[in-house]
């Protein structure tokens, strides 16, 4: 079986972002960039499938600027076999990314596409489902457990009411939730090796895909701050304040 994993380069999850001075965009200048945490989990899952002999090849792809090579190398260092960068210097929105991934999926013909369930920058959570629709494949989103047997996968999905276990026929798109696994840290020798790896580059323009953004960001603002709270001196005061608030609701 062949697995394709798609990853995105985003502002590191530990950093706080701010709007630009003109309030028109997010100021990401100079911030540390990392692999989207959910995508890291997708990469880890693909590597585990490879190690367990379920997959015989795992390929990673990123769509974006040349800078994305760093996160692709991270994926290689974690144990992915081969990396592809679809190079686009303009920002891409989920619909365009899904289209680009479709082009690559048709070329690579994977049995399974693994992706993070959402990117922590735009929090859109769209690309896996869009890609599945474009390919006419089933989708198992928000996965916390994946069991592949033959040309089928049983996937535990984290839904609002708890867990839903679905069986999808392959090929399929599966999007990873946080509890699917805990990604490994790549060993130093593997990191060194990944630095020398060749990353195939495909210019997005050459794919014939419409890359134009469909949504226009008009402004970005910080959320209104809450008024300063109070520190209570005792449990008794807290109980009284809670009782007051509770009574006000009745």
């Amino acid at each position, binding site marked *: 079986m062949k697995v394709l994993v798609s990853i995105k380069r985003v502002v590191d999850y530990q950093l706080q972002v701010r709007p630009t001075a003109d309030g028109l965009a997010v100021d990401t200048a100079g911030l540390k960039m990392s692999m989207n945490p959910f995508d890291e989990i997708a990469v880890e899952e693909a590597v585990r499938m490879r190690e367990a002999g379920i997959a015989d090849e795992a390929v990673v792809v990123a769509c974006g600027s040349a800078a994305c090579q760093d996160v692709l190398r991270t994926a290689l260092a974690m144990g992915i076999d081969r990396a592809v960068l679809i190079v686009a210097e303009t920002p891409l929105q989920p619909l365009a990314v899904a289209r680009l991934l479709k082009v690559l999926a048709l070329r690579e013909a994977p049995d399974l596409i693994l992706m993070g369930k959402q990117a922590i920058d735009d929090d859109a959570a769209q690309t896996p489902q869009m890609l599945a629709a474009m390919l006419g494949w089933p989708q198992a989103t928000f996965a916390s457990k994946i069991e592949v047997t033959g040309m089928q996968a049983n996937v535990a999905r984290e839904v609002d009411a708890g867990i839903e*276990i679905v069986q999808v026929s392959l090929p399929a798109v599966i999007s990873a939730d*946080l509890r699917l696994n805990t990604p490994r840290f790549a060993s130093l020798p593997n990191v060194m090796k990944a630095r020398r790896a060749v990353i195939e580059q495909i210019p997005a323009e050459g794919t014939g895909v419409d890359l134009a953004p469909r949504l226009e960001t008009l402004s*970005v603002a910080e959320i209104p701050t809450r008024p300063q*709270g109070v*520190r209570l001196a005792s449990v008794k005061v807290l109980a009284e304040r809670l009782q007051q608030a509770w009574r006000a609701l009745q």
Partner: protein
Amino acid sequence: MSTLVIVEHDNQRLHPHTRALLGAASRLAGEVDVLVIGHSCSTVAEEAATLEGVTRVRWVDAVHYSDLLAENLAMVVAQMAAAYRHVLLPATAFGKNLAPRVAAMLDVAQVSDIVGIQDAEHFVRPIYAGSLLETVRSREPVGVMTVRCSAFMPVGQSANAAPIVPFSAGPDMGVVRLLQRVRIDATHPQLANARVVVAGGRGLGSAEAFHRLLDPLAACFGAAIAATRAAVDSNYVGNDCQVGQTGKIVAPDIYIAVGISGAAQHIAGIRGAKLVVAINKDPEAPLIRLADLALVGDLHEVVPQLTEMLQR
């Protein structure tokens, strides 16, 4: 101009957030049609017909919709949606799973998690775990959007029931099958709509302490139980209790956070809470600084005392 609202249900009843979803739809001009798609779900269609602002209920009923799987639903929704200006779904596991699939089939961009509607083209939505609000413009012919229901005013009842119009079912794709549904904790009130939420974090230290300390506190208010990712990962409670960027978004009147540090990813889920109470032994914990009412202390001492005082 008209709007199609895809409602969430369990084939018997509408999801409680549906009134707020329709509240969002009412902010858009034109008629509002509701699509009820499922199996043996006539009672859901009838319930939807009585909600304020609904022009008509379109009802699709077939056995291959019983489990509400996106692959089958999207075929019908995409076919129907093309005739509407906007298509709204709730920003829940159900809506997030389905909406992008529909949008891709219509070849339009989707707008996720909207918290504000300015007009037919301008929407406000949180990004970066809710630390920023973005105003976007969508000029797509069909605006497919998921709605953060807690941000909108629920509609009321309508005096006259709207007509229910059956619509023929689409094909069964046969590519996915539901094997099992594991409902984790049905004893507490539904988290997404609870007026009071008692939430616990890693500070509780064990599943035993989590329930021993928080269940009686929650019972004082008939509150729902919530948790951080760390508490869910440690199996204190099920994943259905997780609140935050990856979990549920809640907007209760009172949110009582116990042993929770207040990571940005957790705060993302509670920004709509009216009164935030934090109990933490660390005076520097971000949630202690954010809370409206903060009590610095050891939860093992504070919570039993608090519960006892409230029970009196």
